[in-house]
């Protein structure tokens, strides 16, 4: 039982962090960022030295953890801000479909850039192996990493909430998410807020990259994509633009996946994802605006 709970929470954490990264950017500039998954992949590969061999040459990954974590977070934030400056700045006035395709094209560029440097073969590395050891809590054996994942996510969520509620920058960001043009008129600097959102979202991507890399031990260029899709769905179910909703929906999706894995009859288990997606459609039918509808995203007549 406890095992299931922890499985659900740790999977949900990953989805929630991903959804948060997408929701942050959507909030300030109505962009559904398909490049997010590739930012995740980039952060993982930042640990390696470029080579096309099957053996991974660990480069930054050898740093002690107190240097490693900030390094990866900086990578993510840096790449994300760079994307904003080079690409997304030119699309502020464009319609959502155009922005979406542009972000997809950008993700494509990042992915093939990695492919050129690292080849498409998955690489195995053992990152911080001491985290994979199991610990015993209340009679259940849980990998230490799962605990750390959950605790880290909680810390990030609380930190982000405090940041958004207590600091001036957070206030500006929330104002921009609610009504961008009004916020600008009242003196919020658009570029700063948008770059801040991209930096935060990039750092979140890096956090996912770290957790996922340690969990699976293999690095794959495609790895960002699967998380990104679920995160993307979570963002919409949660109510686009609503950060709380994104987190909630991320955890719900994680829980739904794990519970269905356990509850479905053996024959139906391979089709688990189909059931999860079916549930997504159902939720959308009953609450098309999302579980927690963000203010200001309603279509006005």
């Amino acid at each position: 039982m406890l095992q299931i709970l922890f499985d659900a929470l740790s999977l949900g954490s990953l989805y929630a962090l991903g959804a948060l990264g997408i929701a942050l950017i959507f909030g300030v500039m109505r962009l559904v960022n398909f490049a997010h998954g590739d930012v995740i992949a980039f952060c993982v590969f930042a640990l390696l030295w470029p080579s096309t061999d099957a053996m991974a040459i660990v480069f930054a990954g050898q740093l002690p953890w107190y240097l490693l974590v900030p390094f990866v977070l900086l990578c993510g934030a840096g790449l994300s801000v760079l994307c904003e400056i080079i690409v997304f700045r030119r699309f502020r006035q464009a319609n959502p479909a155009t922005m979406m395709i542009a972000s997809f094209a950008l993700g494509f560029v990042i992915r093939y850039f990695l492919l050129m440097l690292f080849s498409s073969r998955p690489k195995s590395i053992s990152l911080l192996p001491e985290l994979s050891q199991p610990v015993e809590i209340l009679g259940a054996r849980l990998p230490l990493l799962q605990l750390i994942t959950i605790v880290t996510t909680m810390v990030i969520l609380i930190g982000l909430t405090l940041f958004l509620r207590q600091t001036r920058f957070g206030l500006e960001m929330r104002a921009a998410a609610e009504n961008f043009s009004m916020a600008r008129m009242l003196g919020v600097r658009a570029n700063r807020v948008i770059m801040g959102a991209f930096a935060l979202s990039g750092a979140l991507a890096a956090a996912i990259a770290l957790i996922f890399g340690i969990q699976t031990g293999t690095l794959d260029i495609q790895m960002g994509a699967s998380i990104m899709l679920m995160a993307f769905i979570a963002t919409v179910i949660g109510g686009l633009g609503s950060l709380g909703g994104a987190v909630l929906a991320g955890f719900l999706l994680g829980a739904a996946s794990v519970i269905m894995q356990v509850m479905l009859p053996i024959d139906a288990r391979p089709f688990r994802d189909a059931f999860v997606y079916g549930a997504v459609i159902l939720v959308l039918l009953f609450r098309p605006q999302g579980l927690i509808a963000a203010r200001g995203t309603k279509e006005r007549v």
Partner: protein
Amino acid sequence: MGAAASLANSTVPSAAVAERKPARFALARRTVLTPVLLSLLLLAIALITVMTGSRPFNQTVIDVFVRVILVVGLYIFIGNSGVLSFGHIGFTCLGAYAAAWLTINPMMKRGSLPGLPEWLLETRLPYWQSAVLAALFAALAALVFGRVLMRLSGIAASIATFAMLAMINTVYSNWESVTGATSSVVGIPIVRVIWPYLIGAVVAIFIAWAHAISRSGLALRAARDEPTAAAASGVDIPKERLVAFVVSGAVMGLGGALMAHSIGVVTPDTFYLGLTFITLSMLVIGGMGSLSGGVVGVVLLSALIQALRWLEAGVSLGESTFALPKGVQEIALGVIMIVILALRPSGLMGRRELTLTLGSRNK
């Protein structure tokens, strides 16, 4: 923006019942040039290909025609309704597998796909019959899904269609006895002649045109531009969207069947995110709101991809061979797409259609 709305309205009043038909014919005559020109463009490409007689080039052009069918299918729904759909490649998947079920040699089918019903195991149809049936099968699936999904709009609808694609992919990747799961289904008769694909593409273009000038298509475009006004004028938006969804589902199914016959092998992952994004990109770059945009987008992007591939393989310039490093092809493609979109956010064609008098609006 309101032009489509006023046009749709003008056909609605009951006093105009007697005049409706002539009005429709006038509309048809005014707009028929676009599909004709587009078909001529494709015919020209086909003729040039046949004249060069090069086999790899032949295959490339067949791929282009298949993509034209798919992108035109996307246009029928996305262009007219304004709702971005990520799910249409799901119908392509259904169509391709339907074609596989109907055309593979019964002996082989019994071995590789034993879970099929007995009558289907016995059946073996020529490819063009199977393509029509595949299109109908996809349209039926679109009807079922559409009944549910078309109640949504905006980004919720996009995500729901995406969930539909993922559902179809999950089912087809795991239903071992009927779809062969993730392993490829082989033995689909390969058609190497260019003409069936050309006919398919032309049929798709004319279906799109006929739908766009039909009462339903006009109403749908009115609803895209002015949802509130259209609903107030009696347009049943979910119903009109459903019509477009089913028509486009059929075209996507046709494209899937022809795609299966062009490569001879189907796997579920052929019809997943990669194909979804490349076809969507072609539509958006060409111009989401325009049939010509879709076709032009396919032809231009395909030409670009092919040119980059040649450069990657190496081109001899005088003494030295010039070749791009591996991977540059995709990166260049991505960069060019971003540049085009940055310069022309509404696509190359915008909402214009190809006519002899350039610059006429899509009305």
